[in-house]
């Protein structure tokens, strides 16, 4: 029998973890990892934080598992996948070659959503890749002093914080009435906004961007309320779009991501993981796509095992994690475990919103559905473990809340 071949498309967090897992599970046959970027896998969270802030050199972002020769895979870097021939079991590369596969892992992540109606202007950036981050850093090094960040989601908020750290004037523009109003209750978003204001950021809420002005190079951002904010650097962080362009017409179901079953299988012999994958998470009875660091690792691990089971003709197990996320802004560490909605009840169980140091719980239908912390990471992690087993609202508030032992 010919040697079997697993192709992983996407050489970043989820793809790397899938490749590592294939080897760790004893898969001894050929593995090829295809990546559009010219780099070995690297870590994105430091891009908006340490890289833009100028604290880290670019080489520090390498992901250790992919850096050395220890991972026995063939790297195809700098060439993207341009198509998938599902029936012929082939991945078509942008340079015209084709790779045949027995098993396929789709881990192409996501691309930044561009600001609608804005053409290419020098000084306007999005942030996803190392090059993006180095370009923003170079602009700051080159003397950019008036920065407008469009979008107060986690990445936009982190960029605002890093630019403040570099001494730039920063305006943070958000069309929603509070930061993260689609996931968090208003009073929590208000705390995040206040953290930025107290660090000197001009936070403009409830106002959209009408146009980015400039001839060749950006000069200002015109807002929906008619005002114009002068800018020599604009960073747009208004969300991402899953990178599924290469899968169009392949026969896979695409709907804001590659749609998988509850075990991460998208088709026989095909799995997906990370930011690109949408799947029914039985824990929440919801079809979801999660754009978090640890999720990419967990789903990459699960998908690789699922693929090996499929190749062996065995059934797979459902993937039903409690999502978990962190974000660092100035000296604040925000952590969120679970799946909140703005309509959930929210109660602070430790610390206080006023001191911007707290842990709060989200409740729905008598259950705790999420825990949010600011500078209380230990508590959030404890709740995350409890959320895994299911935690009733009454139990949680009746003091069954996990107490963190006092400092020794």
């Amino acid at each position: 029998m010919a040697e079997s071949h697993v192709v992983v498309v996407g050489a970043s967090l989820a793809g790397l973890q899938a490749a590592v897992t294939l080897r760790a599970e004893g898969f001894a046959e050929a593995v090829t990892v295809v990546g559009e970027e010219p780099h070995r896998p690297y870590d994105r969270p430091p891009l908006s934080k340490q890289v833009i802030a100028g604290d880290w050199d670019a080489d520090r972002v390498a992901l250790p598992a992919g850096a050395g020769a220890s991972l026995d895979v063939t790297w195809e870097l700098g060439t993207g996948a341009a198509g998938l021939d599902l029936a012929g079991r082939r991945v078509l590369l942008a340079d015209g070659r084709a790779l045949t596969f027995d098993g396929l892992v789709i881990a192409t992540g996501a691309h930044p959503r561009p600001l609608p109606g804005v053409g290419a202007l020098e000084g306007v950036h999005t942030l996803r890749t190392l090059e993006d981050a180095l370009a923003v850093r170079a602009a700051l090094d080159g003397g950019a002093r008036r920065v407008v960040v469009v979008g107060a989601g986690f990445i936009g908020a982190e960029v605002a914080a890093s630019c403040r750290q570099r001494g730039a004037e920063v305006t943070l523009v958000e069309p929603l009435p509070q930061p993260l109003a689609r996931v968090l209750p208003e009073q929590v978003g208000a705390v995040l906004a206040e953290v930025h204001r107290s660090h000197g950021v001009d936070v403009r809420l409830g106002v959209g961007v009408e146009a980015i002005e400039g001839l060749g190079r950006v000069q200002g951002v015109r807002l929906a309320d008619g005002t114009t904010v002068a800018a020599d650097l604009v960073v747009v962080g208004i969300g991402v779009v899953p990178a599924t362009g290469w899968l169009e017409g392949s026969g896979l179901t695409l709907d804001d991501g590659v749609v998988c079953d509850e075990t991460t299988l998208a088709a026989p012999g095909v799995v997906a993981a990370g930011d690109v994958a949408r799947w029914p998470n039985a824990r929440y009875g919801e079809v979801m796509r999660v754009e978090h660091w640890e999720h990419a690792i967990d789903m990459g691990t699960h998908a690789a095992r699922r693929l090996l089971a499929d190749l062996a003709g065995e059934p797979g197990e459902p993937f039903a994690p409690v999502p978990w996320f962190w974000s660092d802004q100035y000296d604040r560490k925000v952590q969120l475990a679970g799946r909140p909605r703005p309509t959930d009840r929210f109660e602070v169980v430790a610390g206080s919103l006023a001191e911007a140091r707290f842990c709060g719980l989200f409740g729905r239908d008598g259950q705790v559905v999420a825990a949010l912390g600011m500078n209380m990471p230990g508590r959030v992690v404890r709740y995350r473990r409890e959320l895994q087993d299911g935690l009733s609202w009454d139990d949680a508030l009746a003091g069954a809340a996990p107490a963190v032992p006092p400092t020794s």
Partner: protein
Amino acid sequence: MRVVVDYDLCESNAVCMGIAPEVFEVRDDDFLYVLQDEPDESLREKVEQAATRCPKQAITIEG
């Protein structure tokens, strides 16, 4: 097996604690405490996973 944390790198995000709470604990003072410097072999897999997943690569395992 000996667990060593580089506290200059550690950012107290408690990823390690999520995986191996027997060994790692981030307390309300925002510092990471290693509860056992030399955990039992039975914890090796968890500790190794914590070291791999630490976003700062702040954990090393000796022996």
